């Protein structure tokens, strides 16, 4: 029998390996996550700050006269406006007008923060990046904390950027810093929600769905809030509603900041509490079950349909929600517009939209749908690139599948999916408008939908051109062009940019159909440019090396 003396020396680590403290290891992991998120975060910080600052500096242009100020002030009496925009307070002022805009900007920020968190936590895990980190001295919770801390750091930078820039622009400084802080904390809340969903769900897709449901529910409560007879309490039921109480006259800035900070902290702590889960697992779903009766995929076209369907379905739901919200509110909005001749005139002059008729509202709705469809098209270009970057394409191209056939098939399936999303939006817009008490013909609603498809196809074509010529830039450049086009069209007119610059945005060339005639010439030019770009992309793709991520 062998006994071991308590003094038996344990095997020693090699002395030339410097041992790092757990804190130092965490710090290295934190910096790693900062680096992973840096480019996207800086782009979002710059974009949102510029968007908000752009709105602030153009308030004076929008409210030139006392009459216009009165008109804007009257908007907050219209529940339909607040349902779309969020709570409005003194929107005739720079602070009030800008804060009201954050009803929408906040949604953009929340979506990014949530997706960034899920991507950082689950995509990395699915790509096998997490094992080497967790195989060291990093515990899953510390790794999760490093990821959340990195995202929160970028959101703190956003707070600084908004606070400093808006103060410099003449904002009431406490309100500027409160806005910066609240925006950052709203982002932090949804980043934490994304992190929590990433612990609950077993896959990235289900984590996005879960976090998206949370976000959608929070938004639905905010949309419903102005319709209640006791307006304030329902606003306070959702973090999107809290953003409406930042105006100095509400004297609630501190409460909003504390509430958002507390919610972000609770969600982050909940995520950390669940953080010690198995790799590739979650509390919902678990290990992928067998699917013995799964249907055949078919050939390459079947695969293209299959991999496009999930993203197309998600975008169809988003477009459906937007068109349903606008449709249901159309009757109330038109009623409100009846007493706002200046507003109607402004809409007609700046956007060519007749906001006092259901057809005009459908046109306005599809302006937003055009932006969403363009983003969906950029997503399709990015998804096509992902097939190459992940090298899955090798399985097909090493078989008798030509590159041209592969790319053209993917392109056509994406183009048809975009058309289908738009048409579904048209049907929902028609049905929701009728449900809301207004009336628009199905043909008119579908015309409004088809009218915005050329913008999406143009984006897809340009995305394919980038895929062919500079594949690694596909996602960033295509999404970047969509954001640039949106900003140019949405903020450009207030910045009094020259027409030649503004005309560079394809969104400027989308007529407000069905109230206005479809601009056939512009649509044909967009289709021609999109087709030419796609041809260039396909030709370049057929001749170049395949490129990994």
């Amino acid at each position, binding site marked *: 029998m062998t006994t071991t003396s308590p003094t038996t020396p344990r095997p020693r680590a090699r002395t030339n390996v410097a041992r790092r403290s757990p804190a130092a290891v965490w710090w290295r992991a934190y910096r790693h996550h900062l680096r992973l998120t840096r480019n996207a975060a800086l782009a979002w910080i710059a974009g949102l700050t510029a968007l908000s600052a752009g709105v602030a500096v153009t308030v004076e242009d929008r409210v030139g006269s006392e009459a216009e100020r009165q008109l804007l002030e009257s908007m907050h009496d219209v529940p339909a406006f607040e349902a779309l925009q969020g709570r409005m307070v003194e929107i005739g002022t720079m602070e009030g007008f800008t804060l009201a805009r954050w009803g929408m900007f906040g949604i953009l920020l929340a979506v990014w923060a949530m997706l960034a968190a899920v991507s950082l936590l689950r995509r990395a895990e699915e790509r096998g990046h997490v094992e080497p980190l967790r195989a060291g001295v990093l515990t899953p919770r510390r790794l999760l904390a490093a990821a959340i801390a990195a995202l929160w750091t970028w959101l703190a930078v956003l707070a600084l950027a908004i606070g400093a820039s808006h103060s410099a622009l003449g904002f009431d400084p406490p309100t500027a810093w409160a806005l910066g802080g609240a925006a950052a904390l709203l982002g932090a809340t949804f980043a934490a929600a994304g992190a929590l969903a990433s612990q609950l769900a077993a896959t990235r897709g289900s984590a996005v769905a879960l976090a998206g449901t949370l976000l959608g529910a929070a938004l639905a409560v905010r949309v419903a809030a102005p319709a209640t007879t006791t307006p304030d309490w329902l606003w306070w039921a959702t973090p999107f509603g809290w953003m409406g109480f930042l105006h100095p006259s509400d004297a609630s800035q501190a409460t909003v900041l504390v509430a958002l900070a507390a919610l972000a902290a609770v969600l982050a702590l909940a995520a950390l509490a669940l953080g010690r889960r198995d790799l590739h697992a979650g509390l919902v779903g678990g290990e992928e079950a067998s*699917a013995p009766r799964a249907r055949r*995929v078919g050939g390459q076209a079947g695969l293209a349909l299959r991999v496009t369907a999930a993203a197309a379905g998600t975008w169809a739901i988003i477009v459906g929600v937007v068109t349903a919200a606008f449709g249901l509110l159309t009757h109330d909005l038109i009623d409100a517009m009846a007493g706002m001749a200046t507003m109607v005139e402004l809409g007609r002059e700046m956007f060519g939209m007749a906001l006092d008729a259901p057809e005009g509202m459908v046109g306005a709705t599809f302006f937003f749908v055009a932006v969403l469809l363009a983003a969906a098209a950029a997503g399709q270009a990015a998804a096509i690139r992902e097939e190459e970057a992940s090298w899955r394409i090798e399985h097909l191209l090493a*078989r008798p599948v030509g590159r041209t056939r592969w790319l053209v098939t993917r392109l056509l399936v994406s183009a048809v999916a975009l058309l289908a999303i738009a048409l579904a939006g048209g049907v929902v817009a028609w049905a929701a408008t009728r449900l809301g008490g207004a009336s628009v013909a199905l043909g008119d609603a579908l015309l409004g939908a088809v009218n915005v498809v050329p913008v999406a196809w143009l984006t897809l074509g340009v995305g394919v051109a980038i895929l062919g010529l500079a594949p690694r830039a596909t996602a960033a450049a295509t999404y970047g062009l969509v954001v640039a086009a949106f900003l140019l069209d949405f903020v450009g007119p207030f910045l009094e940019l020259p027409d030649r610059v503004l005309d560079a945005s394809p969104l400027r060339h989308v007529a407000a159909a069905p109230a206005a005639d479809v601009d056939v010439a512009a649509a044909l030019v967009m289709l021609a440019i999109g087709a030419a770009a796609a041809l260039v992309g396909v030709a370049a793709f057929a001749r170049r090396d395949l490129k990994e991520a």
Partner: protein
Amino acid sequence: MVDHPVLDLTDAPAEGPQVPAVRMVELTKRYGTLTALNRFSLAIAPGEIVGLLGPNGAGKTTTLRTLLGLLTPSSGTAEIFGIDAWRDPVAAHRHLAFIPGEFAVWPQLTGRQTLDLLGTVWGGYDRAYRDELIERLSLDPSKRGRSYSKGNRQKVAVIAALMTRAPLLVMDEPSSGLDPLITATFQQLLREAKQRGQSILLSSHILSEVEAVCDRVAVLRQGVCVEQGTLAELRHLHATTVEATYVGTPPPLDDVPGVDDAEVGDGVLRLHVTGSPDPLLKALAQAQVTAIQMREPSLEELFHAYYDDRADGA
């Protein structure tokens, strides 16, 4: 023993067996100033199994990807059964199946769906043979891609390639991730493929696998083919270890061509001989040799010789 149907070569090119399954002529691939593959030439006859050896970064994967038309050759040509792999990849690929070393699956598809997809895009596959392969390689095809381990993903890749019964099989580290039992089954499948007349180009780090199944070997180093030939030819180029025992005067070895590292001890001599052993045998005949052992270098020793040369030259 499973009875395999004879390979149907009706889909093979009409030119017949005189056309090489693979023919690379001075194939070169440059990335800017880096030459990943430099004037590599190789021909594989129908029914032949050729191993591609080399350390990491030697250019093996670049060779295979260029052969598959996934990378543009900077110069030179690559043909599959006489069809230019870059100019007409679709026609070329009708005659080959490929097993990558790292099989990136579609996470949402089950193994069976993936096999069906890849078989369909290839132009059809032998369903009975697929089922047999699934059984022999112990794959559960009902699981989704995201839940497969690396080894199981690799099994999907192996089955997807073999079930097509393509006349040429191109493999890049095909058994990476497979356990020893499945690796043995895989090597048996390769031998069966050879018996059916299929050609194989096998890039591998597993020297025993190459030694067990390959007729010929090409060794790449820094993008250059440093050696090519049958295993016997390669061994012939390298030293054979000889150990002999003798009685009386040791044999005269000073001027014997090819003899190296001779150590003469107490009735025992050890030496290496390169090239023909005939002069050595004649020299040994002058002494009273009681026993002789000759051992050819293993592939591993050959491989080390090339790598050590690299280290020496570095």
